[in-house]
């Protein structure tokens, strides 16, 4: 631990705790997941940054969406995201969740992931190198420090709009709404 950070630890221990324990849900979608095993194992060792993969969404607060998202995967992503406890951070990894990437005219791949769930940050590239994950993580630290990584708050506030978009893509959802707030409900 950096000694210069001690002041920060006393000032806002919750923020510092969030920063250094980003537990990533081990959710594998698309081809980008192939970058994750070297990142979490000895070659790049993500635990230096406090990032470890965990098995269930209930234990995690970082959601890396690693690659293209088919309509069927979107359903699983939404369910996983809604199960994660707050504060939670999402990072879109690769160009496919950003704007479709090479699947821009695919019949079954959603193009913009941020229409359906809020995203804190993007890692562009096809594929991004494992180092890019650490750049994203350190950037996320900065955002958390400055109080800007508030996508989960946005989700809560605009849940109605998000839910409407999700229903447009997936048809009727077979789980009840998570929140009653948001623009779509009124």
């Amino acid at each position, binding site marked *: 631990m950096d000694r210069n950070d001690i002041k920060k630890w006393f000032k806002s221990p919750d923020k510092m705790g969030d920063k250094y324990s980003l537990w990533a849900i081990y959710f594998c979608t698309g081809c980008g997941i192939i970058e994750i095993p070297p990142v979490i194992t000895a070659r790049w060792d993500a635990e230096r940054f406090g990032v470890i993969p965990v098995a269930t969404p209930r234990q995690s607060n970082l959601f890396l969406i690693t690659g293209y998202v*088919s*309509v*069927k995967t979107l*359903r699983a992503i939404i369910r996983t995201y809604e199960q994660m406890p707050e504060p939670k951070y999402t990072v879109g990894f690769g160009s496919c969740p950003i704007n479709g990437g090479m699947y*821009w*005219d*695919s*019949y*079954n791949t*959603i*193009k*913009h992931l*941020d*229409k359906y769930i*809020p995203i804190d940050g993007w890692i562009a590239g096809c594929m991004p190198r494992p180092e890019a994950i650490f750049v994203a993580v350190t950037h996320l630290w900065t955002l958390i420090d400055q109080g800007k990584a508030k996508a989960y708050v946005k989700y809560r506030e*605009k849940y109605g*709009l*998000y839910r409407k*978009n999700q229903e*447009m*893509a*997936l*048809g009727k959802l077979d789980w009840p709404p998570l929140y009653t707030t948001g*623009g779509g409900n009124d």
Partner: protein
Amino acid sequence: MISALKNDLESIFKDIQISAPEDDRLIINAQKDAVLTILKFFKDKGYDHLAMISCTDWIEEDEFELIYIVGSYSVYAPAAEDITSDKSGVSKEAAFNGGNILLKTRISRKDPRFITAIPVFENSEPYEREIHELFGVDFKGHPRLTPLFLEREYKIPPFRKDFDTRRYVKDFFDQIPFVENKEK
């Protein structure tokens, strides 16, 4: 070995074209009525493995082409002495190893119906289900032609050539607004 197989086939079945572009590959073009009999013939010969069923959309000829790829794990496997005796590697006969049989047949595109191959190869079930979903071919006798991969209903099955993916993306995915834009 492959020539023996070719002669066998030509003597039994009429109205088929056989070509062997490589040592270990046999391509058979058959009429659609004969497909199940030919598959059964290969199964009796020891070709116990249906690798996959594939489909091609020949839109200009107004036909679908179904391709059955059959291989063998048992009968034509090289004998142990075949491999050890020849130091330069596996001999040609042994290397054939049953090879791959590509059985092709054409069905009408306007009325895409066919019969299921489940009585012969049980594992054709998911392949036929997939072809039903992505090409809209109806396999008679298949127990459950329910959706396998897709979440949504498509007017035209999406792997057909006349399915306009760009228009579909424009009409469907691009119509979903960004949350930020929606508020304004």
